[in-house]
């Protein structure tokens, strides 16, 4: 599972080209952001849209030397080398000397890292912060002249980001609030030995969890207890959670169980594992209801990406639900969760890169309709084992088609 990145600085290896941008060739960029760093637009259309002016920054113990004091508006790539012996940071500040247009943090001594920004004409400051404290050193005026590049304005990112986080946290709470009673109902049936009912509730109940799986995984100790597969467990460690019960509800034949006859859990063992799952689900519910619980904006978009990675590495291969074969339920829930996360940041991304948003929209729709051919959460899906290799490959192709544009979302979002 992709862990959300810890910070929100845009860093990306840029293709550093000759100083064509300086000649004013940055054209055709549909929408670029002025006052915050962001990576170049989708480079598939206009060749010069990604032409990037390369600048170097030397951050030493007592200076912050930028290779030029002036650059044309458009895509600027600052390559910062830390020649000092402390961890350093580099900032591009707006004309008030306060607002951060772009930043790179955590540059270890001797390390080189890029900051790529789309800069509008105007007055800026560059500053380094070796040791990461104080106001920094080497604060220098930096001027961006008008190259004629078409750089659109964007809305108020900070406000939009806060709103997106609020909405997403509400969604997470909503899912887990639904998960808690549904899990109880499932476990009640399982405890009582009503296996038919338990089996019928299993996949649908899990959907609430699968929609927000990256959030659950962000609480490092809970996901292993709730959702580990048998193979994930270390020897000598107790295997608990959904898949432990799954195996008991869909007991394997000996040849699928390392040659050993599967021993069904006793009523007492059923109660034991049920109690644990109920308690761990409750703990998850408590965790997201903590007063200070929030998510960062990049965690939302990385969560969308992570959910698709989950599909690609677990569900599409039938490894997640090896006993119940209900992988397509998980697939659907992952997809829905990813879509919600994406929709949550859409308004921030769209002005910056409408083509990317359109492409992601299109691929979401295509993959959803492809998956719908095999069922729905309400009506049920076909078992994973009923899919032909060709059908699985078609679904995998759809996952790849969506994941590629989706993987660009965070860089645009935080840019």
């Amino acid at each position, binding site marked *: 599972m992709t862990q959300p*990145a810890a910070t929100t600085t845009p860093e*990306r290896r840029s293709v550093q080209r000759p100083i064509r941008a300086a000649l004013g060739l940055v054209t055709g960029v549909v929408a670029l952001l002025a006052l915050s760093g962001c990576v170049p637009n989708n480079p598939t259309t206009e060749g010069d849209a990604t032409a990037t002016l390369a600048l170097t920054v030397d951050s030493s113990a007592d200076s912050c030397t930028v290779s030029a004091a002036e650059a044309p508006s458009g895509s600027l790539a600052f390559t910062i080398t830390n020649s000092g012996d402390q961890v350093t940071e580099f900032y591009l500040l707006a004309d008030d000397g306060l607002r951060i247009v772009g930043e790179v943090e955590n540059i*270890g001594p001797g*390390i080189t890292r890029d900051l790529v920004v789309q800069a509008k004409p105007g007055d800026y400051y560059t500053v380094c912060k070796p040791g990461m404290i104080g106001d920094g050193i080497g604060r220098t005026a930096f001027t961006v002249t008008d190259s004629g590049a078409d750089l659109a304005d964007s809305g108020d990112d900070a406000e939009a980001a806060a709103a997106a986080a609020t909405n997403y946290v509400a969604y997470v709470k909503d899912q887990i609030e639904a998960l808690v009673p549904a899990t109880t109902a499932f476990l009640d049936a399982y405890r009582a030995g009503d296996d038919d009912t338990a089996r019928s509730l299993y996949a649908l109940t899990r959907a609430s969890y699968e929609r927000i799986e990256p959030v659950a995984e962000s609480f490092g100790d809970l996901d292993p207890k709730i959702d580990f597969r048998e193979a994930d467990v270390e*020897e000598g460690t107790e295997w608990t959670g959904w898949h432990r019960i799954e195996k008991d509800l869909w007991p394997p034949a000996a040849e699928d169980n390392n040659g050993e006859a599967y021993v069904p859990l006793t009523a007492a063992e059923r109660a034991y594992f049920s109690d644990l799952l109920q308690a761990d689900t409750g703990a998850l519910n408590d965790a997201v209801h903590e007063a200070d619980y929030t998510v960062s904006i990049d965690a939302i978009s990385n969560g969308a990406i992570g959910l698709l*990675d989950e599909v690609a*590495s677990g569900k599409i291969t039938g490894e997640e639900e090896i006993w119940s074969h209900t992988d397509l339920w998980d697939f659907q829930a992952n997809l829905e969760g990813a879509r919600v996360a994406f929709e949550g940041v859409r308004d921030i991304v769209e002005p910056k890169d409408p083509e990317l948003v359109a492409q992601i929209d299109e691929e979401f729709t295509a993959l959803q309709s492809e998956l719908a051919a095999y069922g729905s959460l309400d009506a049920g899906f076909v078992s994973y084992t009923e899919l032909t*290799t060709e059908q699985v490959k078609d679904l*995998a192709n759809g996952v790849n088609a969506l994941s590629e544009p989706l*993987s660009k979302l965070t860089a645009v979002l935080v840019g």
Partner: protein
Amino acid sequence: MNDTPASPKKGLSRRGLLSLAGAGVVGAGLGAGASYAVAAAAPGHSGAAASYPFFGEHQSGITTPAQDRLHFAAFDVDDISRDELAELLADWSYAASRMTSGLGAGGYGPASGPYDSPPDDTGEALDLPPSGLTITFGLGPSLFDDRFGLAGKRPAALIDLPHFPGDALIDALVGGDLCIQACSDDPQIAVHAIRNLSRIAFGRASIRWSQLGFGRTSSTTRAQTTPRNLFGFKDGTANMRAEDTDQVNSAIWAHSSEGPGWMAGGSYLVARKIRMTIETWDRSSLREQERVIGRTKGEGAPLSGGSEFTEPDFALAGRGDAPLIDPASHVKLAHPTNNDGASMLRRGYNFVDGNDDLGRLNAGLFFISFQRDPQTQYVPVQLSLAKNDAMNEYVRHVGSGIFAVPPGAREGSFVGAGLFG
């Protein structure tokens, strides 16, 4: 030396057991060497003509500068006798000593010998130099069951590897009674070695699983540059080097004080076929990639700073007092300082076995390590990685094997001879 090679197996065996002399001498005696481009290159040459001696204190292919290509094969031994097993190992050593010298597998060579007999070498290495070929033999745990009367001889260090969290082993890619690691700078030379050794074994042992590797992922000497794995990162920067004599002696070679005498000067090989889900890796951000590895992608410097060979500083913190090197990063979890000093000699290779049913490259790293005691060197490190490594999202262990690698053979003897004494 007047046996006729009309029956290659028999002839080889007799020679193998009775006169494992220097291969060049044997070859010349049978008039086969002349058909090879380099009959017997001087040991230690670099480049295509490089050749390494087969006989010696240790087997070659361990501290030997890692060659560029690999063909590894694990074998199941057929229903044969203990003597026949010894004979097989002797035949293998004989052929290996010839091939590592740039000679044919058998005495006649691929284009000579009785016209009505199949050539005793398959021929694809004809006209090619030795290309640094090394052939390294290993003995798996299953060899020490009750079939060959070797049950009492199993070294304690030849453990059964435990289940590691996340293991997705495929039965067909696990275990083996015997293994051969053939390394060369020319893929055709490595394949030629396995092919001919496999042929020699027909009726006595057959390949259980095998692996081709196309790019070394470690350096084993200081002179070698650090290569890259299929994640695009330098791999093996912190690897032990042959020049680190003390470390090599203490970490790689088995000692007679702690195991059977016949293993003294040998080592233990762990092989793991690690599939990489490169499609999801490739669409992860540079930030995520460097976080997972703990090093920069370009230079390979630890994220705590410096250059490639700077020691990582796991305590150095950045913003929010979080360490610059993530505690779940690969470099942190694999580092000796986080594993009670455990280290091993890694000698792995990149592989791409075509694609899977879903159109994804079946690609990854064929991990090989040599160590004196897998229980204290390999197992704790892999356990720590399997539990916590941020990289686990992008890798899956699908194949596994552990083998005792006996010491090198003296001229006239064969690898593994001590087992039958």
